[in-house]
């Protein structure tokens, strides 16, 4: 179970009260009628599928019923922070390694972060990256 800090209720609440609502910080094309199919289709249908630091929207469905943002690690399930709508995240994929070193926690800079998540043949993965 997640123990999620609701930035509006100002306290930790059980995951049961929340509903995940997908990727955060999507920007609607300013002029939909004149946007390309790529821009509009990307906005409507295509989402990042990050392994690692991910910014997502959550809804405090059984509670204050407000949407808010969360920065979470999709591999380790660690929640780095939650913040109100309209605010920017302080933890990002770029600075998360530094933050962890500061707090004295060993951070992995790359590779498979979850125990047991290593694929049977890592060479497949390396081939893909090459």
């Amino acid at each position, binding site marked *: 179970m997640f123990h999620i800090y609701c930035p*509006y209720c*100002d306290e930790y609440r059980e995951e*049961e*009260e929340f509903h995940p609502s997908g990727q955060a910080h999507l920007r609607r094309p300013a002029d939909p009628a004149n946007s390309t199919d790529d821009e509009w289709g990307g906005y409507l249908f295509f989402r990042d599928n990050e392994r690692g630091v991910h910014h997502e929207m959550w809804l405090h469905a*059984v*509670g204050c*019923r407000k949407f808010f943002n969360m920065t979470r690690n999709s591999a380790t399930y660690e929640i780095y922070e939650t913040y109100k709508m309209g605010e920017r995240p302080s933890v990002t994929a770029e600075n998360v390694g530094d933050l962890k070193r500061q707090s004295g926690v060993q951070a992995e800079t790359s590779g498979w972060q979850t125990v047991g998540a290593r694929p049977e043949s890592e060479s497949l993965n390396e081939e893909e990256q090459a």
Partner: protein
Amino acid sequence: MSNIKEFDCRPVSQEGAESPMAWTHQHHESRPAGPNPGVRIAEKAFLGHLILRGGAIVLDEAVRDVLGIALPGRPNTMTQNDAGTHSVQWLGPDEWLVIVPGGEEFELEAKLRKALGDAHFSIVNVSGGQTVLTLSGTNAREVLMKSVVYDVHPSAFPVGKGVTTVFAKATAIIRRPAEDHWELVVRRSFADYTYRWLLDAAAEYGVTQERA
């Protein structure tokens, strides 16, 4: 003044009125309470419930003027008058629940609309949609501990607190207006389920029911 048509949806006569608990009371016998019941369940039926939405500062001013109660500004808190008859509870950063004695809600709504003028706000009378159950007795907290995910220990849930949370997989507003009792604000459609869950959960301590 906002261009809103107001109408009083409360019948002139309360004769034959049924609270959301009516079906339950008609279909289920009271259980024998036993010699020393640890839990007492009662319903505060037919109260006036209003949902206020808008900015905290304008609403606070209007509520102070009209009700003489401050709008609770801190999350998950409630304020009430000394007699405990009128209360305002924080539901969200722009949403509050006002509960007043039945029959006062329409006049209150009109007064608030007048006080708020053309500010950006919304008032909805939800009196028919929900009811208030009170839970008291030495084992009331144990019953809640079995029913909600929220921490109801006095250190986490002091008098004057109120939260919306999961109650036995349904939704309920749980609040603690006084040291010796808790209130549950339940939706009409969950009322029968919630009430019977409470009876089941309280059975081991012995339970007395007071019917409206």
